[in-house]
């Protein structure tokens, strides 16, 4: 399954993804949809817990970002923006305090899809039942990316991890809002191409800084991609070539920039202090 195949599939793109996956894995469409339904419920629950809590994470670097934003005045008068960011951070802060979340596709990038998809749905008053098939499409885009590149920061930098989640979220939001398969795939490609080069530099090696705020930023990024694609804008570079480019950059990336905490933000004086403090624990 490639993005090119997906782009030419009959609408809705998610149905095509579902049929192919079931043929491959021996599951029925009903089972996959039921699992996705329960995952949406889990995502909701992690958002609610995350928005209500300001308890610190394992290292104490995060834990109050989502609640802080949620409770703050909407200075830009942009409720969609605020909601998407707060949802995304709520999930990742729950993750950072060993709460229950849905990896999508990983735990470190778990906030992007709920932030973007559930954030947009709640903003527009769309019920959860209508999110099931867009969630299937998101998973299909993730599968297409993982065929050429792993989806973890250790394998290809954060571009592979949050880049994948942003691409998955962009396709899902586009289908939710009535986009064609072509628009969904281009939304994914635009989201992915604008994450290329992003390093994985978690402070102390923990999925907290910059991961929590990075999820907030890339959830918004995914919604922006959907908006461009729904206005018929497309990625000039064909979608599968974007994945190839991302994979190539990932292979060129030194080990220091792939989740080892040996580069980037992790090597700042503050980052090193956190590493030293956690080593003593």
């Amino acid at each position, binding site marked *: 399954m490639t993005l090119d195949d997906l782009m030419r599939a009959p609408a809705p793109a998610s149905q095509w*993804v*579902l049929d192919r*996956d079931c043929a*491959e*894995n*021996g*599951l*029925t469409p009903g*089972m*996959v949809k039921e*699992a*996705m339904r*329960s*995952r949406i419920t*889990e995502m909701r629950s992690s958002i609610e817990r995350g928005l209500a809590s300001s308890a610190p*994470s*394992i*290292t104490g670097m995060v834990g109050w970002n989502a609640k802080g934003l949620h409770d703050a005045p909407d200075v830009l008068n942009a409720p969609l923006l605020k909601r998407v960011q707060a949802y995304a951070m709520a999930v990742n802060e*729950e*993750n*950072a*305090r*060993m*709460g*229950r*979340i*849905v*990896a*999508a*596709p*990983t*735990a*470190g990038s*778990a906030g992007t*899809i709920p932030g973007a998809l559930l954030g947009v749905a709640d903003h527009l008053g769309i019920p959860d039942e209508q999110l099931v098939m867009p*969630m*299937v499409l*998101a*998973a*299909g885009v*993730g*599968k297409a990316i*993982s065929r050429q590149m*792993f*989806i*973890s920061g*250790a*394998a290809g930098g954060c571009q592979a991890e949050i880049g994948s989640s942003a691409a*998955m979220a962009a396709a899902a939001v586009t289908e939710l809002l009535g986009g064609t398969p072509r628009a969904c795939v281009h939304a994914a490609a635009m989201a992915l191409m604008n994450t290329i080069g992003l390093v994985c530099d978690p402070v*102390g*090696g*923990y*999925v*907290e800084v910059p991961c929590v705020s990075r999820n907030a930023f890339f959830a918004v990024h995914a919604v922006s991609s959907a908006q461009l694609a729904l206005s018929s804008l497309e990625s000039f570079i064909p979608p599968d070539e974007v994945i190839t480019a991302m994979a190539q950059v990932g292979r060129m990336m030194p080990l220091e920039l792939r*989740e*080892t*905490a040996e580069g980037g933000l992790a090597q700042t004086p503050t980052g090193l202090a956190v590493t030293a403090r*956690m080593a003593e*624990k």
Partner: protein
Amino acid sequence: MSLLDMIGPVMIGPSSSHTAGACRIGQVARQLLGQTPARAEIGLHASFAKTGRGHGTHLALIAGLLGYTPDDARLPQAFDEAGAADLTYTFENVDLGDVHPNSARLRVWGNGEQVEVIASSTGGGVIDVIRVDGFKVSFSGGAFTLLTRYHDTVGVIAKVAGLLAADQVNIAALTCARNQRGGDAMLCTELDQPLGEAAHTFLRSWPEMKWVRMVRPVMDAGIQAPVLLGTTA
């Protein structure tokens, strides 16, 4: 790789590779032992050794040995639960050589049984089991996996394949390794359906068989797949 691996697993944070994947590695080791271990010696390699503590890797491995899934709310209390289950454990940092940075070696003992498992957590909660008792294997826990350790003689693989065929079980993947000609060998087969109970008992009764284990799926798509016993559907 299925859609349920991409949106999922539902898990206790914070890291799909360091926490959920580690838990699944523990689940596989438990199944290969065939029981809850009484003792576990766990070796952590590279990134698992370096940042495992804060990521709950130690807790998750023990949780898996206790049979918990990655979404089990008891995962953060796995050390206390191990005490209640009479499981003692040690952790050490090891160098497993040229393997994925998120890898672990689990040596587990219980009730006259012992097994050593080396496995990697490759991202998003996906695992890759690479050694069992020193034999090279390759399985992901995405399907029912039959492992047999036997005396290396002509025709054993054909006999096992024949038994699977007779039981209407389809082989999805197969690896085989031996320590020396005529020594011990291990056959690892990933299956579309589990072997039936009667066929399993029959297999264990063969004189050349030394050890037989059926590992149930630990990945979500495998767990949810319908078990099509005795049918080719």
